[in-house]
């Protein structure tokens, strides 16, 4: 029969093991963040745009914007029950910063390409720098309940091979 002192000794050992496990877990996750398993964790800041007044902001013309210096910004507006644009074409291998904004209720978007999984809270702009590498068409939909048409709120990401001329929308 085990007495309580023996059990206590094992238990203290188990406590130490638990603490070490937790520390390793934390170090592992921090390591994955620093090595950018999910890109731009520390770099990208969110900003605010009044969802009632998009005029004068880039969100008034959603789609891919090529800047003077050649960098790419994609502006995506979520509104029940559609994304604008509903199809975004981006060149493979080139860095694109996605700017996502909801203008009515909370929506969400997950893109398996580029490790995007973001809540779209009215007015809070999510800014996500990403490089899409594998060409193809990726179909997904809103992933936060937003009302009766939630299941029809689709989004298509088309990653185009780098040889093709880049399409803007």
């Amino acid at each position, binding site marked *: 029969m085990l007495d309580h002192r023996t059990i206590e000794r094992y238990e203290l050992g188990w406590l130490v093991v638990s603490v070490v496990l937790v520390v390793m877990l934390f170090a592992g996750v921090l390591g994955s963040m620093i090595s950018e398993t999910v890109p731009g964790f520390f770099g990208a800041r969110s900003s605010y745009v009044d969802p009632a007044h998009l005029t004068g902001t880039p969100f008034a013309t959603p789609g891919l914007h090529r800047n003077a210096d050649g960098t790419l910004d994609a502006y995506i507006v979520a509104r029940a029950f559609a994304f604008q644009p509903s199809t975004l074409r981006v060149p493979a291998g080139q860095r694109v910063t996605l700017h996502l904004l909801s203008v009515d209720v909370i929506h969400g978007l997950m893109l398996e390409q580029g490790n995007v*999984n973001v809540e779209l809270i009215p007015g809070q702009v999510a800014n996500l720098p990403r490089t899409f590498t594998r060409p193809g068409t990726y*179909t997904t939909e809103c992933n936060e309940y937003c009302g009766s048409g939630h299941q029809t709120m689709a989004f298509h990401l088309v990653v185009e091979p780098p040889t093709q001329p880049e399409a803007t929308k």
Partner: protein
Amino acid sequence: MTTTLPPRSVPDERVYALNPEKKVTLYFLVTGLVFLMVGVAIGPLQALNYAGIDVYRSLPFLKSYYQGLSLHGVLNALVFTTYFISGLLLYLPCRELGVRPNLKMSWAGYWIMTVGVLMAAVAVLGNNATLLYTFYPPLQGSPLFYIGAALLVVGSLVIGAQVVTIWTVWKRRHPREVTPLVTFMSVATWLMWFVASLGLVVEVVFLLIPWSLGLTRGVDPLLARTLFWYTGHPIVYFWLLPAYVSWYGLLPRSAGGVIASQTMARLAFVLFLLLSTPVGLHHQFADPGIGMGWKVLQMLLTFLVVIPSLLTAFSVGASLELGARARGGGGWSGWIRHLPWRDPVFVAQALAMITFIPGGAGGIVNASVALDAAVHNTAWIPGHFHITVGTATTLTFFGVTFWLLPHLTRKPLASRRMALWASWLWFWGMALFAVGMHWEGLIGIPRRTYLATATGLGDMLARAHIPMALTGISGLVLTVAAVLYFTVTFRTLFGPRVTAAQETPIPFSDSLEDAEHRALPAGAATVSPAGARIHGAQLVLDRLWVFTALALLLVVIMYGPTLIGMLLNPHPVPGLRLW
């Protein structure tokens, strides 16, 4: 609800005369179970939706998949748990300390809760609060729903205040004594709930109720979400800790053993009191508008909550092993066969504990900011919480009812066999469900989606045929389990009474420390140095108000800057009804 309670005229004995708190406890339990029955009845519809079978189209009383899901989530996760916990964690400390609660206050708690739930039910059943159980603004429901939700929480706080008052009075009368274990764990749970419920109370009372009544024009959705998850994560510990109370304090006796270490049990509960609340931001890793630094800090604190759960796994495992060895078991694992596998009280809880191992492990994935990106808002998440609250908690509560209902009503369990079948089928049903849902989540299937008519999932659905079939099948297995469980429960409630001498006892368990202390020869020093050390440590852990103050301080540090930033720079938006 009153129809499900035993008849008022009891032939020869007055069952509740000696312990009138039994009656209020019974009302809490049975009302909770009735609401659970309604919530669970909707479950198979949700599961079949995953299998592509759309039952909603042919249902006259539910307007949409989302209305069904709102009912299912609110009734099972919020209503059933709150009732059951209020009953259980009121009754156990009262009986352990041998005191009677203030019955007027206890019944007031019950009726506040019930009025609240009925108000919310009117809103949800009328399709006026199809908000799912997270009710994120700016989706705007009927004020009845928000007021009802607030009353549900207020009712639970009235009961919690009862228990804490009883304990405080007991402490004053026994200043040098250590609080008995089950009372200690119950009080720690209630104090944690006081700290944890603040966010939801503030959100609902100051933001959502005035807004839904038209008194304010908008709500800041990010602030509301943050307040919601301030309570929304620790509420899972409010669901889990009562199961721990049973695993630590009652299950060892059901298994023929003793509590392996009271001190570790107390330490685990103090850690939960401290660490449960300042971790809610891990539900908001994907939210823009919240600093990454605070998310990472709260991630660390979330990981720290793993420690008391690992302590529990060890300690409860040791208790069961002690029990099995006392019953003649031996060897490295041979003792497992000597556990009471024919006793549904034990089996339901043992299966609940086994399920919590993958459940807890999945929780670590969700709490990791990098891995969360792969699973956030996918079917993985409901897969996770159906094996935590849906099994670890719920199946434990089923096991508790197998002794508690006979104890309260003095009516023996109607069928041990049916109770065993219900437990095993719930276990296997949830195992199938969890495999299916976690798998779908990794493919990218979103949660909370009317999948049967979804148009935007492309080839994901084609890749998810097998797991989606598993989810559908699991819904049928769980339906059978639920029918068996509710049959045995209500047959017990309407069954014949036995005499007072045959009453099922409360399985308060002995502890190894106490058993060894009593076994000392009569002439030995009454307190050994080791015994004095343990007593001292337990007295330190008994200062639950100090730990509550520390918990609040930790909350202020971890949430203060984020919340102050949002309050100073509010972004209200108007409400919408989009269903």
